[in-house]
Structure formats: C-alpha cells, structure tokens
C-alpha cells in the first residue's frame, strides 16, 4: 500500500482503538458493551493488516500470540462464571454486585459486568483478528492451491 495509506491508517487506528476501549469500559452505562467494543478493536487491527500486509502487521499483534490470547480470553470468561459457583452462590452469580452494591450509574459498580465486558471484548477482538489474518494469508496460484498460511508445521 502507498505511504499515505499507511500513515493515515496508523492515525485512524488510534481513534478506533480509543472508541473501542470507550465502548467496552462504559458498556453498562451507554450503548455498547463487550461485543461492540471487541468488534471495533478487531476492525482497527484488520485495518492495520490490510494496509501493511499480514507480515508487517505481525509486529503489532502476531498470529500465534493472538490465538493464545483468544483461548486465554475464553478461559477468563469461563473462570468468572465458575468463580460464582466456587464462591458457593451458584454458576454465573454476580457475586460482587450482590455483596457490595455500589452507587448506581457509576462506572465501576456493576459487579462482574465490567469484568465480563473486558473478557468478552478481548475474546471477540482476538478471534476476529485471527480469522482475518488466516484468510488474508491464503494465496491461490492460478491452477491448484498452495497455502501460504503460516500455521505451525505438523
């Protein structure tokens, strides 16, 4: 991609990232939430991949760390759910809100909801990013099919 596009995307990525983080952080107070924020951040990274190609985008977020982050995000969300069970109140219990109900309409008072929001956003972002890098790096020769996909060699 031309030089202009690359610098412009670097700037735009900053705005997209802040908007995405805002959506996640204020998910329970204003429209938005884990999904919207995660998808927004994913589109930011996809912009980087498209403008700088899969190889160079490796620096900002590589494929292998993204896959690991994806599983970690999922495990984090499962842990929050099971934590409710462990604390004896039952699966998916909003244990923080039940024990210490904060003052309403403030940012950090919705118990496990902000935590779940962050876990979901992390997960959605990395999942979509992995799908894009994987599909962007599939090359087709005219005749048959040779995959340049950088999956680990079996």
């Amino acid at each position, binding site marked *: 991609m031309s030089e202009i596009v690359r610098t412009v995307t670097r700037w735009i990525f900053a705005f997209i990232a802040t908007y995405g983080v805002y959506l996640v952080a204020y998910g329970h107070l*204003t*429209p938005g939430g884990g999904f919207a924020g995660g998808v927004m951040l994913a589109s930011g990274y996809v912009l980087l991949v498209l403008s700088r190609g899969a190889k160079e985008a490796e620096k900002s977020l590589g494929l292998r760390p993204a896959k690991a982050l994806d599983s970690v995000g999922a495990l984090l969300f499962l842990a929050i759910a099971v934590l409710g069970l462990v604390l004896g109140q039952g699966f998916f219990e909003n244990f923080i809100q039940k024990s210490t109900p904060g003052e309403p309409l403030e940012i950090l008072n919705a118990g496990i909801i902000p935590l779940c929001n962050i876990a979901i956003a992390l997960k959605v972002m990395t999942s979509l990013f992995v799908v894009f890098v994987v*599909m962007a790096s599939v090359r087709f020769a005219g*005749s048959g*099919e040779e995959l340049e996909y950088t999956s680990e060699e079996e």
Partner: protein
Amino acid sequence: MLYTLCFILFAVGLFAVSTQKNIIKIIMGIEIMDLAVNLFLVMSGYRADGRTPILTREVSRPEWLAAAVDPFPQAMVLTSIVIGLGVLALLLVLALRLYGRYGTYDITKMRKLRG
C-alpha cells in the same frame, strides 16, 4: 404490514440458498435469511414511540419505564449477529478451500460426491 416485509426478505434468502449455483451467492442467501430473522426479533420488541432501554440521569425513572423498548430481543439479536458472523467465517473458509481445489465457485461442477 412490516412483518410481511420481513417474511418476504426471509423468502428471498431462502430462494437464493436453494437455487443459486454460485457458492458465494448461497452464502449471501444465508446472510439475508439471518438478517430477516434478526429484524423480525427487534420489531417484535418495539413499542410505539418508545425510548432506548438505557437509563441515564437525564430521564426520570417512571417516565422511562413507561416508554422503554423491550431489551430482551436486542440481547438475542446481538448474540445472533455474532453467531451469524462465525458461521459466515466458516462457510467462507470452506468456499475458499473449495475454490482452491476446483478452481470455480460453481456448485454443480463439484460432483465428486454421488447424490
């Protein structure tokens, strides 16, 4: 009246899935059907001149309660949209691999499997 338009959109999607030869068109047909169902769900939750189901400091609680739109279909649609995206990603990967193997998007040419 609006529900009929949703059904028509669903029928267009169904028509595309069952008749088109091109794989990408079939995938688009599924996308249209999914969209029609999501639309139907959000419409079933709409309340005449209602307000968004988000309580903020500006609006008084009783007035908001009287006019707020149903939040539950919106939660269902949010989940359904992301499921649709997941299915689409998988279908496109299959389509790309099939394109790599057969060199065409035409489903009738891929007759390796007997009926």
